[in-house]
């Protein structure tokens, strides 16, 4: 019953915001990444951010995606459920997506010191956000044959929105992103190195698997509750956030640790 209060609270508070992972998840990804930056990479990055932390910009792309000139980035937040990522799940031509943007930015940032400050700054903001987005199970555009809406109690909620906050909140409402990063960042150096290995494309394929799993776990009657859904997928959410953090660190280190 306590959960119902929470869910109600959240529904009321959350109306109007639709962010992948919500601010809490994105901030957590950035906290985890920051902890795994080399001192040199961290110093280089923050010199472009006026001494701010990447945490400050974790959800920045979400604040900006509707107005020009940032509206060009609107479709960067999602990926597609097909191998070539050129068409969406229904076979239509696909606009740019997070994985291809990440790859483009990484190659553009080859020697960041030769680039203008404003370009480096905005690329840091993009990467910080997009690596989080690509790991969010509903940021893969799944076919419309899958459920788009579910019900929690009597409230109807979009599957996308449920993952933008509700799933994490089901267990971690009240935990600050800083604390959440401490709880989730608990892997050994060897494990972390394994998570960080591979390319964005490899990670995308893995994300796809998790995404399918997260969507397939929705009960057949589309009715979600702690017992039938949240308690079962919270591990997936935590795993995705943690790995996104490690991988963001790997990307940023590869660019800025020089």
């Amino acid at each position, binding site marked *: 019953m*306590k*959960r119902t209060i929470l869910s109600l609270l959240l529904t009321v508070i959350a109306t109007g915001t639709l962010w992948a992972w919500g601010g809490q998840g994105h901030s957590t990804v950035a906290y985890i990444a920051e902890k795994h930056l080399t001192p040199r990479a961290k110093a280089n990055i923050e010199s472009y951010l006026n001494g701010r932390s990447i945490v400050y910009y974790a959800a920045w792309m979400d604040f900006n995606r509707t107005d020009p000139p940032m509206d060009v980035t609107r479709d960067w937040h999602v990926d597609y459920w097909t191998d070539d990522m050129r068409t969406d799940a229904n076979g239509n031509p696909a606009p740019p997506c997070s994985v291809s943007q990440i790859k483009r930015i990484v190659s553009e940032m080859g020697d960041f010191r030769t680039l203008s400050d404003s370009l480096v700054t905005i690329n840091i903001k993009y990467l910080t956000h997009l690596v989080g987005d690509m790991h969010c199970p509903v940021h893969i555009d799944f076919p419309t044959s899958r459920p788009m809406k579910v019900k929690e109690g009597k409230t109807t909620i979009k599957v996308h929105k449920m993952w933008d906050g509700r799933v994490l909140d089901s267990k971690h*409402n*009240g*935990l600050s992103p*800083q*604390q959440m990063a401490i709880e989730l960042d608990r*892997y050994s150096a060897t494990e972390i190195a394994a998570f960080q290995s591979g390319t964005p494309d490899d990670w995308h394929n893995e994300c796809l698997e998790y995404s399918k799993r997260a969507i397939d776990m929705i009960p057949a009657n589309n009715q979600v509750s702690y017992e039938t859904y949240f*308690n079962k997928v919270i591990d997936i959410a935590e795993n995705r956030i943690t790995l996104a953090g490690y991988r963001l660190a790997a990307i940023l280190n590869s660019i800025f640790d020089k």
Partner: protein
Amino acid sequence: MKKFIIIIAALCCSLSASAWSRHIHSGIAAIAHDNLTDEAKKSITELLDGKSIVYYAQHIYDYADNEAYKHTKVWRNIAFTDKNKILKAKKAAKHEHKAISSALAYEGLVSSLTALQSGKLTKEQTRDNMLCVITILSDLHCPTHYVFTDNLEKRKSYYHYNDKKYSYMGYWESNSIRGTFNWKTNEFVHQLSRKTPEQIAQITEGSVTDWITGNAPLYRSVYDLLDTGTRFDGKSLRLWQNKIYPISTEQVAVAGYRIAAVLNSLFDSNAPQVKIK
């Protein structure tokens, strides 16, 4: 059949009982975590696969329908006589009022602590019992979990604000703190985990039972802080809240220190031992 009825009654009650909100539970656990000895922290981290007690602050609520925690649904409230003595479980269970018949938090806490002290548990059992201790001991520092048999009417206290009616029990659950501070987990530590060793010694002096019975007079007085039916406006609500938050924040801190003392005693052989009774 009788047992079944008791369980149902208990269930209904536990559903309507006020408990600390998630924010406060994780805040208390964070204060406790901050006061664990290195030795205790190490053992506990192992039990929890690398996570801390903060992560699990409310685990037994989230998984209340799991086999491991089903029986803890009646471990929410504690009943007291008019003399501020803990009402015995047998007596409580027979009581016609469901808030009392289900007030078995003390028995639950004692059974979990006894099991942990026996040292005969598997890793999983140790973990489950420890999580029970953390959540229940937190709740036993929330005044509305104290049911005074001579004072049951006051559990129905309410107030009006902006022409709406609110329950006083519900207020304590969250807004006793959230009404004044928006603290998050680590901020509870920053604000409240700053007592001197002498103050901590005073808070953790005596047995677990002493702590709980020691809380009773104060918590009884908390029920008197609201004249039921009061109509608040913004200003009078603020003035009233100013009387409450010093109590709620202090109880949260006290709960944190005491949970740390219990866990240190269980998981660090060099720490001072805390007795159950």
